[in-house]
């Protein structure tokens, strides 16, 4: 299990871009979610009182990653929650000809007095959006609208 992410400095100046990677597609999804979460909050300052299971299906792995990140942004506003961590299991269902995700988001109600908040992400964009498999690594590039 290996995963990482780094923020890209010279892409979309007003926004926030990152490259995430994992040694499996599941690890890529966790790394991408963690990058998104770190834009919004320092996750160590968020407790684990709130949990939400998510199940998503998309024909393409890139669409699945996009929907996964969109779901996190949506829940942040709709339920006023912020996240400590994300877990994800992603697999290709050959029968259904689709990619499946079973995810878990863990966090707490937003409270600036207890959490070190960052930027409010407005959207996950398709600008320079990319998911690829290269030399045994799954890699994604994502630009977030801030």
């Amino acid at each position, binding site marked *: 299990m290996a995963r990482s992410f780094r*923020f*890209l*400095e*010279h*892409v*979309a*100046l*007003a*926004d*926030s871009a990152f490259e995430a990677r994992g040694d499996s597609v599941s690890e890529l999804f966790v790394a991408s979610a963690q990058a998104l979460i770190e834009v*919004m*909050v*320092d996750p160590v300052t968020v407790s684990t009182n709130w949990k939400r299971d998510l199940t998503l299906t998309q024909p393409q792995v890139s669409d699945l990653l996009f929907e996964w990140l*969109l779901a996190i*942004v*949506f829940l*942040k*506003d*709709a339920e*006023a*929650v*912020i996240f400590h961590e994300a877990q994800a299991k992603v697999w290709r269902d050959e029968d259904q000809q689709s990619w499946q995700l079973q995810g878990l988001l863990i966090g707490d109600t*937003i409270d*600036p007095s207890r959490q*070190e*908040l*960052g*930027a*409010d992400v*407005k*959207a*996950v*964009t*398709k*600008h*320079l*959006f990319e998911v690829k498999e290269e030399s045994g690594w799954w890699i994604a590039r994502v*630009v977030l*609208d*801030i």
Partner: protein
Amino acid sequence: MNLATKMAVQQISPVIWEIPPTEKVGMRVPARIYATEKMLSEMDAGVFDQVTNVACLPGIQRYALCMPDGHWGYGFPIGGVAAMDLRQGVISPGGVGYDINCGMRLIRTDLTVADVQPRLNPLMTELFRKVPAGVGARGFVKLNAKELKQVMRKGARWSVEQGYGWQEDLARTEESGCLAGADPSCVSDHAIERGIHQLGTLGSGNHYLEVQVVHHDRIFDHAVAEALGIHGHGQIVIMVHCGSRGFGHQVATDYLKVFEKAMKRYGITIPDQQLACAPFQSSEGQEYFSAMNCAANTAFANRQIITHQIREAFSKVFNQSPESLGMHQVYDVAHNIAKVERYREGDLLVHRKGATRAFGPGCEELAEGFQRIGQPVICGGSMEAGSYLLVGTSRAMDETFGSTMHGAGRRMSRAQAKRMVRGAQLQQEMEKRGILVKAVSMSGLAEEAGLAYKNISEVVETVESAGITKKVAELLPIGNIKG
């Protein structure tokens, strides 16, 4: 001149530069950038690439434009303007942005800096309490879905009807704070769920509420300033920068997906997925336009509610009514929007993304009070550098589809700014310089440091020199609220 592009860039005037359609396959019109030579040489590669991508969109008229505060966005550059033929042209959510009707509002007062300075701390604390900011913040207005649909239809008028504002505010708002053609049936339940609790909130990023001072020697047109209620003898004004919050962000997200599929059906190919578009007259185009108008009206309502909260905060701290403090709205203007406007080609759909409407004197669309002086244009700088009040010109009507700049424009990424500045230290340094900052997020504060932005005065001088807007006054910060 060393530019971040290999495309040929021809000088048209000291502040206008043109990239001919021969420079990129698919360009239908030239791209024009408003900038000094220095500013052009500092523009990132994304501006050149994106403004020429916009020039490829079906139905675009005359030029794809970029204002001097232009910088790398997604799809359109920030600072981008594009006008489309209504029959042959497209509408693009990427030409509006995720924060539909992000915009600026300016409120004047009769207070002076001498009145406010001794009570600045309690004033900023009260403003910080009354106008929630930051990630996922919720406002005090409690609505159900049916009521939110009323907000979508009525815009700022809904807020005034609920007691959040004065009738006169509407005449001092672009389109009187309500765009026609807003149809809530075109909005998803997701968008409603996401935005229903957020009316009356600022957001984060570059959104802010700022208490500013106007000095007499920084008024550039006294007659126009006077007509707008700005006398400038250490006068206090309040500026608000925010938009449609999660509601508008979700509308944009929803329709970008719809348009990605629609483009295949209509045989439209584009150089960037974020430029996803559909014919304006198609069902998808019309539905997005209706939903966008819903979001735009919600943003007008949001800034109207925030105005009410600002008046309440001032009233509490100074123990006087907002009326006796002279807290009249100067103007409210959008800088992320698409609207049908009439130009010499006929009715056009003008996209402005990080660009402000700048209608000149005599425009029929302006309320009576602005017919003589032109439409006020409110341009926000960084929280350290100050902002400007300008007015539109006839030349903007002729040259830029009645459009101009919207702010300073970024010159540094958020990640780089955070590496160079620490939020808490910046807050202390600004306080020493006489600017009191209340912020939800210290890292967010660092991202918004003045060094991350272009010099707004240079940007303003460029649009003044181009004749597409005219300076009225400079507004300097003494207090700032950040999300």
